[in-house]
């Protein structure tokens, strides 16, 4: 009976996964470069591949059950990965971290120096680092459309949202920002829609058409579907993306300003025990932080700020974090667990996975969310 149940589970998973990719390639995938990782449902891994200006979707087969939560911190995981790649630990960079929500397993995108070779490794409950064997997996690659004068060569973030995949990118020539959408099921060689974003920058009280989105999440509200993005300097803005036509310019609404001298790295949302929704912004400061031991830090923002509509609460009137206090105004506060975090992703509504840098040594741990 158990075997029969397992059979049905596998068949169900296969049928469901088949709807995510259309006519996928079988095996032979090689990732040339890597800037961002993200998971969709059923173990679907999205890889931003900037060297080819592409998003690659891979069926990892890691579809659960959800029993891979890291049991205890892994000290010097950077040393472990570097040894596995045959270099010193200062010769690797963890480009991104993503938790597979289906299993709780942690995936790290690693770049090695000097040859810039990339590898995806995963870490399960036992803390062992295992390379992801792409050889037998199904995949598709979608190349993002370039501008008229140059190609997108840096993909800052990628995320799955129900019936489409979003990606954000910048060019290596003109100073420009783009948002891309790719319809699901994802099809090898499919065309992405592209639109440019116009945003009000709270800090200097001007509209911007060119500032690149550093990180984003898809966000559903009563008003529709939004891309909530964070920019350097650091406004958090939302862009309504329902029924947007390719080539159009979408006007963003700035909701919160976290303060100057910051570079956002990651965003995720969660609900606390009371059911209140929060947006976590993981950030790097250019200078020493006023309230913690590291330039790497994070804050959480009540989602109420993002759902505000009234003009007196948006753009030039957007809420500004009180940079002289760890909290304030109400609903904006520093998350202590994120000091020193170089990569972070949500594990559950109560926990996040944090890759922390302590004096050049990387450790991996599960941290409680407030």
């Amino acid at each position, binding site marked *: 009976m158990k075997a029969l149940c397992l059979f049905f589970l596998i068949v169900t998973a296969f049928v469901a996964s088949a709807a995510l990719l259309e006519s996928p390639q079988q095996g032979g995938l090689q990732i040339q470069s890597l800037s961002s990782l993200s998971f969709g449902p059923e173990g679907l891994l999205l890889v931003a591949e900037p*060297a*080819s200006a592409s998003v690659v979707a891979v069926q990892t087969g890691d579809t659960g059950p959800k029993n891979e939560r890291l049991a205890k911190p892994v000290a010097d995981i950077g*040393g*472990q990965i570097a*040894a*596995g*790649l*045959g*270099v010193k630990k200062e010769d690797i*960079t963890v480009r991104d971290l993503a938790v597979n929500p289906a299993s709780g397993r942690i995936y790290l995108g690693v*770049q*090695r*120096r*000097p*040859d*810039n*070779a990339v*590898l995806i*490794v995963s870490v399960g409950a036992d803390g062992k680092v295992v*390379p992801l064997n792409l050889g037998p997996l199904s995949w598709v690659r979608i190349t993002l459309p370039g*501008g*008229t*004068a*140059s*190609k997108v*060569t*840096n993909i*800052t973030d990628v995320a799955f949202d129900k019936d489409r995949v979003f990606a954000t990118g*910048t*060019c*290596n*020539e*003109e*100073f*420009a920002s783009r948002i891309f959408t790719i319809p699901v099921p994802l099809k090898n060689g499919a065309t992405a829609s592209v639109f440019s974003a*116009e945003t009000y*920058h709270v*800090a*200097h009280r*001007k*509209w911007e*058409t*060119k*500032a*690149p989105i550093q990180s984003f999440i898809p966000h559903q509200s009563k008003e529709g579907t939004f891309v909530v993005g964070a920019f*350097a*300097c650091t406004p958090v803005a939302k862009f309504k993306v329902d029924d947007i036509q390719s080539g159009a310019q979408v006007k963003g609404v700035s909701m919160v300003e976290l*303060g*100057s*001298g910051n*570079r956002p790295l990651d965003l995720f949302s969660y609900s606390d025990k009371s059911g209140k929704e929060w947006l976590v912004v993981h950030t*790097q400061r*250019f200078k020493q932080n006023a309230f913690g031991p590291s330039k790497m830090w994070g804050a959480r923002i009540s989602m109420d700020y993002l759902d505000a509509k009234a003009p007196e609460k948006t753009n030039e009137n957007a809420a500004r974090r009180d940079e002289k206090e760890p909290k304030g105004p109400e609903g904006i506060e520093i998350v202590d667990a994120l000091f020193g975090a170089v990569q972070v992703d949500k594990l559950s509504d109560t926990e996040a996975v944090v890759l922390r840098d302590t004096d050049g040594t990387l450790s991996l741990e599960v941290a409680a969310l407030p």
Partner: protein
Amino acid sequence: MKRWLTAFSLWVSIACAVEVRMNDLRQIEARGSDVRVFRGDATEPLFGSMVKKGDCVLFNAVLPLVPWETYRVEVKSSDGNWSEKRLKFKPTAPVVPAVAIAPSPTVLPANALKLYLHFSQPMEQGVFLERITLQCQDGSIVHGAFRETELWSPDGKRLTLWLHPGRQKTGVNLNTDEGPVLQESQQHRLRIAANWRSTAGVALGKETVFMLAAGGVDHTYPDPQRWQITAPKAGTRDPLVVRFDEPLDPAMLVSALKLKPEVAGAVTVSPDARSWSFTPAAEWKQGAGVLEIDPLLEDLAGNNLLGPFEVDRDAPVKAAKATTMGFEVRG
């Protein structure tokens, strides 16, 4: 790559009895029943897979072995004993990379946004902020001069170096707090560190210093009406030349100007990015031609034909009136 393979040198201690080598597939091949490969004295082995083939074992590293690294290979012989050998991946005829800057000479507006570094070899990534230093005329270092986003061309040889827009743009917090990256009417030094390696692991070997001259700020959009076009003569393969009144983005220029109707030929951008020329593959025919200009073409301060980089979105947009240039090929 094959040269490296043949040059893979083997350090075999005299006491070793087991043969170890690297085969043409870049696998480590050893006579024995098991093999583990480590970098130097590392305690954790390399990621990879092992297969048995007769009385040999083959180890496939998950990523290619790295030139210049020393590997420790532990082999289990058929009698169950482990022995150890060291291999050094030593490439022959290593190519020393070199770096150039564009535009050159590097005369920039004080509010310049970007310039380009061209390397002769693909370079290691993830270290550019540690390898590039900008100095003011008085020798002081400009901290936080560059945008952290690392933008390489697909072949890994060209780095787009952004002077931090948050400091170069008027009124942005960093500009207010830290001041601009470049000082008007001053010389700056851009120092490229000697230890920056190519992807083959060969360092530049010596520091390279580029002089950057900063002029005044430029808040004016590029305007083709201020450019000069020189038409070639029919029956020749002389270049069609456009001279600009300021340096434009040298990378964008390669593809931003297009002939209509299309003509096969080659584009050349002058090192100082002040002129563009097109040499046709066949002789010019008599008649009128049009040069279409991509309105996104930028000058060095990020101003494009659609308007200045620093634009007040509430004010009327100042943009170039024309995005084409006509010319006449005469006999």
